[in-house]
């Protein structure tokens, strides 16, 4: 027991310099900008086919989501020969459940609007980490459904942007948004304002040091 306590007791392991330089240093923000805009554009492209044009999934004259239903039907089908698109039975059952309950009507909106939103947020660099996480989740699900396409590359890119969330939106709206809103462990002025207006009487959270302050 003493050995376990010694091994786990309040030991913080620090990242090596190169890792911190890549994921935490604003000097490399231009590199993250390139990755972010590329990924965002790919998401807007993917979403545009679903919200616009003859083959769109939503806002059609007939029922919405028929395109998604076709995708699900193809994914959950088990061919007589060869291997099925979905490797995991639990995921096939999950899609089958959504398909048989006609969830595609509203889920098509979730995917189409979600893809557009993720694309726009990545391009302007607002809530970049959150947008990358949502994008990676969609990539992950598309891959589980047997659709490779560009998903593996976009997934890796999203994970890297997610890891570099502190600086990946630096040349973007996050440059102002993150210091203002703060983080769960360091609330910004907006968070402090909410607490002040709420009159909880608690201590004023520490403000992020302002740029240019000496």
């Amino acid at each position, binding site marked *: 027991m003493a050995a376990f306590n010694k091994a786990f007791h309040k030991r913080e392991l620090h990242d090596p310099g190169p890792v911190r330089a890549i994921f935490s240093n604003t000097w490399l923000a231009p590199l993250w900008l390139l990755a972010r805009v590329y990924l965002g554009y790919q998401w807007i492209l993917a979403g545009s086919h679903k919200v616009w044009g003859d083959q769109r999934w939503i806002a059609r004259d007939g029922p919405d989501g028929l395109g998604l239903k076709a995708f699900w039907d193809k994914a959950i089908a088990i061919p007589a020969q060869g291997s099925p698109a979905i490797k995991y039975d639990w995921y096939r059952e999950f899609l089958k459940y959504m398909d048989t309950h006609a969830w595609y009507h509203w889920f098509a909106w979730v995917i189409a609007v979600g893809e557009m939103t993720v694309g726009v947020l990545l391009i302007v660099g607002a809530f970049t980490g959150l947008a990358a996480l949502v994008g990676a989740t969609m990539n992950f699900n598309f891959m589980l459904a047997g659709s490779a396409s560009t998903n593996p590359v976009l997934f890796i890119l999203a994970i890297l942007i997610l890891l570099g969330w502190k600086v990946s939106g630096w*040349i973007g709206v996050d440059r102002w948004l993150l210091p203002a809103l703060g983080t769960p462990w360091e609330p910004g*002025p907006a968070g402090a304002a909410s607490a*002040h207006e709420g009159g909880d009487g608690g201590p004023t959270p520490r403000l992020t040091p302002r740029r240019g302050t000496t």
Partner: protein
Amino acid sequence: MGYVLIALVDGTLALDNRHEASGEEAEPTGEGRREETVTKLTALILGVAAWAAVAGLAVVIAFNMGSKNQVLMFLPILIGVVVAWGIGEVVTEHVFNGTKEGA
């Protein structure tokens, strides 16, 4: 609401209110302070509009050009982001930091 919006840019007003709460004299006062707040709000609204324009540009390009020659499509969006960010940096420096710390 306006309080939170201003705080979104640089937290300047939040610092002002802390001055008030602690009984310190806020500078400038009265008309000057109102003018300063209007300037900040205008800067904030223009900033939000600039970023919305970048988002609109990206959507318009993607919808109209699709995946044809992605490098050419990529560049205007990239330039739009950099320009909006650069303007934001300059405006933040002059409108927000300058008023509180430049004096």
